[in-house]
């Protein structure tokens, strides 16, 4: 699943560990999500969306056509 997490994190100048600390997951989890190796759970996706003040769809893209 594609996502804009790395871009959003870089805009705020946060490290992976810092972002992980803000939403209560490990830096390994953030790295895996950013590289597309791990899809976050729904609660974690909501926490990320709230933190960045975006919708989940604005952060994550499952590749499906939402026309």
């Amino acid at each position, binding site marked *: 699943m594609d996502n804009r997490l790395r871009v959003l994190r870089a805009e705020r100048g946060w490290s992976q*560990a810092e972002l992980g600390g*803000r939403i209560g997951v*490990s830096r390994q*989890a953030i790295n895996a999500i950013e590289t597309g*190796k791990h899809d976050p*759970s729904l609660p*974690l996706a909501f926490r990320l969306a709230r933190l960045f003040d975006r919708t989940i769809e604005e952060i994550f893209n499952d590749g499906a056509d939402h026309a």
Partner: protein
Amino acid sequence: MNAMEFNQHKVDRSLRASEIGLVAILLLVAASTLGWPLPVSALAYVVILVTVMMLFANRKQDEFLERHWNTAATTAFFAICLWGLLAPFTIGVIDGVTGAEHGRNVADTLAKSILPIALVSFFGAFQFSRLRNG
């Protein structure tokens, strides 16, 4: 130390425990293969027990860590089931091919081998999941 740092510390410690557990498994295999003294095997079992307990206790600290745990536990369960089904057949085939009845008690062989099979598959799958997923 705040709560989030504590979370990271537990995850790091659990991942290190999984590595130590794998080393202990290899030590156990070497000890049984090379006939090393019993205390070596006993020490390896103690280390494995502690690392498994640590992983179990901390598995819900982080969803990525939990994913590794789930992969490892599922693989170990599958390996046990497969071994339980295939071991009697394999022993029978070996005895048939060699034309010799070794007098192996299938139930005894299963009982002795089930724990090493479970542990090797658990720690192997845990590390494989780490390598593959991040």
